[in-house]
């Protein structure tokens, strides 16, 4: 690929692209031009339509309106393979590999070098894989089985795929979410190198400082619509945030003034080999404790072990002074713990079931006198919580899929609140829901804390942790590396600890 400094025609361009999923308009008239030699940032809140842009460029979705231009020519990618063959590579946030196959096979799947007779040239494949890893400066053994690699290494495999395919248009969808600072810096070097050699990059990140460090231009999306495209040097930090959010950050979070009560949840010395270790913390009544950290740092795993869905190797968990047995969620529920899981569609809801049935799932004995579930009681329970959470629904007998993301989350919350918990663990409660619903969820959490519920809030969105929590615990690679008070916690201090630069001496001292 020849380096052309400023080619007049963008390598890839979306022109006035629209896309709807059933009733949801994911994109409305979005235009972006990706130029050779340029790193282009795509900014926006969760649910702004960034993923849809990525999927359209990658050929996973086809636009309903508008056009995609490759080298100035209209194209229509009907499948990911077509996009790949035209030089587009998408590096997904959560890399998905073939765990049973070797690393080199993962890199070259579908494009393996051949010897005469259409026979795969394994030696050449391994050599070329080793060469790419060498270029990336990461020693991964190409013949190794992929099962058991860390997320960071799997990410490197994704990048190696793009490199080995000589991709000209490279989309990186939050590639740094699971990387340490060192790994991210290495990735940036690689990304800049690709741009210098004439590739066009689209870079998505939640961290603004990364955008400023790496990107030349930025396109901001909000609620599926294009807000602006600017040179990175011509837009300051605050303006960028305002463009993304559409309102100032303060309005997103309720004012909170809480008197923390007695210690309700006490976790001491929790261990699970290879997942997390030495986890000790407490949550008091009426307190919101934020649990921050990079994707894959073990936050959800800790939550699952506290709740008892996962085993623990050692350590104790107690609620209101009563110790909980390991791996026994039923007892955990009886003792007042509720866990709102990270993935509401997979783990939180039975999407095909009516709203009212979902709402009562954690509370079946209450609506089933004599062991037989009464529809009327179920509906009454669902209506009560629907009103308290201002749920927007058609009919309570509609399946849960018909609800928007924010309202689905409310059903999951309502389901657990119906158990009248004293400890509420929420894992990424606002992922993928719109701003309005976010504000409501935040207000709700704040109310619950005011009522004396102890809340553990796991979130990858720093503003959310900083805006909501009374105390912030930061995890890095399975360990708590910092515990910060509201005054100490800033984006910088949290990120510093989350990338493995935790200051000792704070860990566990509160327990």
């Amino acid at each position: 690929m020849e380096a052309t400094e400023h080619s007049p025609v963008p390598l890839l361009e979306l022109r006035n692209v629209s896309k709807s999923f059933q009733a949801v308009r994911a994109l409305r008239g979005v235009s972006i031009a990706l130029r050779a030699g340029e790193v282009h940032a795509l900014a926006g809140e969760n649910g702004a339509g960034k993923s849809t842009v990525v999927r359209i460029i990658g050929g996973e979705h086809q636009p309903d309106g508008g056009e995609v231009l490759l080298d100035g020519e209209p194209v229509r990618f009907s499948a990911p393979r077509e996009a790949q063959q035209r030089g587009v590579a998408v590096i997904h946030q959560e890399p998905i590999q073939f765990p049973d196959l070797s690393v080199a096979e993962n890199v070259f799947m579908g494009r393996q070098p051949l010897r005469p007779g259409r026979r795969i040239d394994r030696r050449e494949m391994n050599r070329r894989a080793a060469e790419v890893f060498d270029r990336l400066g990461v020693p991964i053994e190409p013949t190794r089985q992929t099962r058991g690699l860390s997320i960071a290494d799997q990410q490197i495999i994704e990048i190696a795929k793009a490199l080995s395919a000589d991709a000209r248009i490279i989309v990186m969808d939050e590639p740094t979410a699971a990387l340490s600072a060192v790994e991210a810096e290495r990735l940036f070097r690689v990304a800049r190198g690709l741009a210098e050699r004439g590739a066009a990059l689209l870079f998505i990140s939640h961290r603004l400082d990364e955008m400023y460090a790496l990107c030349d231009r930025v396109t901001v999306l909000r609620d599926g619509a294009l807000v602006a495209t600017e040179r990175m040097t011509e837009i300051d930090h605050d303006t960028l945030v305002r463009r993304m959010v559409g309102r100032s950050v303060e309005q997103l979070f309720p004012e909170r003034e809480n008197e923390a009560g007695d210690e309700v949840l006490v976790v001491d010395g929790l261990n699970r080999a290879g997942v997390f270790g030495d986890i000790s913390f407490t949550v008091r009544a009426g307190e919101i404790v934020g649990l921050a950290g990079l994707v894959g740092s073990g936050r959800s795993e800790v939550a699952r072990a506290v709740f008892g869905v996962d085993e623990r190797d050692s350590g104790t968990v107690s609620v209101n002074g009563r110790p909980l047995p390991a791996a026994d969620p039923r007892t955990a529920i009886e003792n007042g713990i509720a866990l709102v899981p990270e993935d509401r569609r997979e783990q939180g809801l039975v999407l095909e079931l009516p709203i009212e049935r979902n709402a009562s799932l954690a509370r079946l004995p209450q609506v089933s006198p004599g062991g037989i579930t009464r529809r009327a009681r179920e509906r009454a329970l669902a209506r009560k919580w629907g009103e308290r959470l201002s749920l927007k629904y058609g009919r309570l007998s509609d399946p849960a899929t018909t609800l928007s993301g924010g309202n689905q989350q409310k059903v999951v919350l309502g389901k657990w609140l119906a158990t009248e918990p004293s400890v509420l663990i929420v894992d990424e409660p606002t992922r993928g829901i719109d701003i309005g619903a976010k504000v409501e969820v935040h207000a709700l959490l704040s109310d619950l804390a005011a009522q004396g519920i102890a809340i553990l809030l796991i979130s990858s969105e720093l503003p959310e942790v900083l805006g909501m929590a009374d105390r912030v615990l930061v995890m890095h690679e399975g360990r708590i590396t910092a515990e910060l008070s509201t005054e100490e916690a800033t984006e910088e201090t949290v990120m510093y600890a989350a990338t493995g630069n935790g200051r000792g001496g704070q860990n566990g001292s509160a327990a």
Partner: protein
Amino acid sequence: MNRVRSLLSGREISIVLALVAVVAVTGAVNPSFVSAQGFHDLFLNASIIALLAIGQTLLVITRNIDLSVGSVMGLTAYLSGQMFIADHDTPVIVVVLAGMALGAACGAFNGALVAIAKVPALVVTLGTLYVFRGVDYGWASATGVHQINADQMSPSFLSFGSGSILGIPHLTLIAVAALAVAGYALHNWRSGRELYAIGSNPQAARLAGIPAGKRVFSAFVISGALVGLAGVLHASYFGTINASVGTGRELAVVAAVVVGGVAIFGGSGTVLGAVLGALLLTTITSALPILGVPAFWQRAVDGAALLLAISLDRAVMLRLAARLRAERSRARPAGDTGDTEGSVPRA
């Protein structure tokens, strides 16, 4: 990696060891079991089931399964008999090709429902297990031909089934040839590796642009053709056919594949392993009467072997997962001991 790989090939070695043990024990009880004739019989018995196991492996690797193999085999066996009734001098090659074509057509039917209509293979082939068998019986009762005997078939067809070259039965040679081709293709062709990819992670396969539907459909068709061939060979070897040929074979085939180390959830396993699994199970079956175990225990042995192999796979998988977790936790503190382990005061 080396450990993982040695674990996999270890499976094939352990089957061979089990095979040696079974043969040794049985041979000690009855020396004729280890004679040249004894081995000849063992290979002959295993050949048909090995052909079925090769086809089944292609499917299981992609996270699919075919339970209708017994019925398809019965159908093609019956077809070969009917062809001789229609014309006593039908050339052998025509019968073989017709059987394979009918098998491939049945496979295409299964494959279309699985790959295009997206119905789970377990359900589709459980249905066609009965549908194909029903067609078989329907054909027999419509024509009134309930049994076809050796004298109704051409001598060249019968000698094809029972013949051998240099003491190796034709059937075994055919099975070995199929094994070689399938093994080579699975290991060396892109489409072969893509079958593993589809079974290992369907979503990743889609993103890698692998035409999963096409590959799965082809696997069903190829497997069907092999099953069709097995049906014709059954007819030419046994010389007696009725509409119930192959009944219950699906259990033996799936057991052989799983015992042979093909992961039931797809993504790993070899045809060599599956064929060795077939050989081991048929050897045990032939050894049972000699060891004084009544013959009706045979299918229980197949079932027990299936359960044992799956439990073993599961146990190995859990141990591997635990070891990988432990390795990662050991690897971790090395990177940042100074930050986490070292400087944290014990309160």
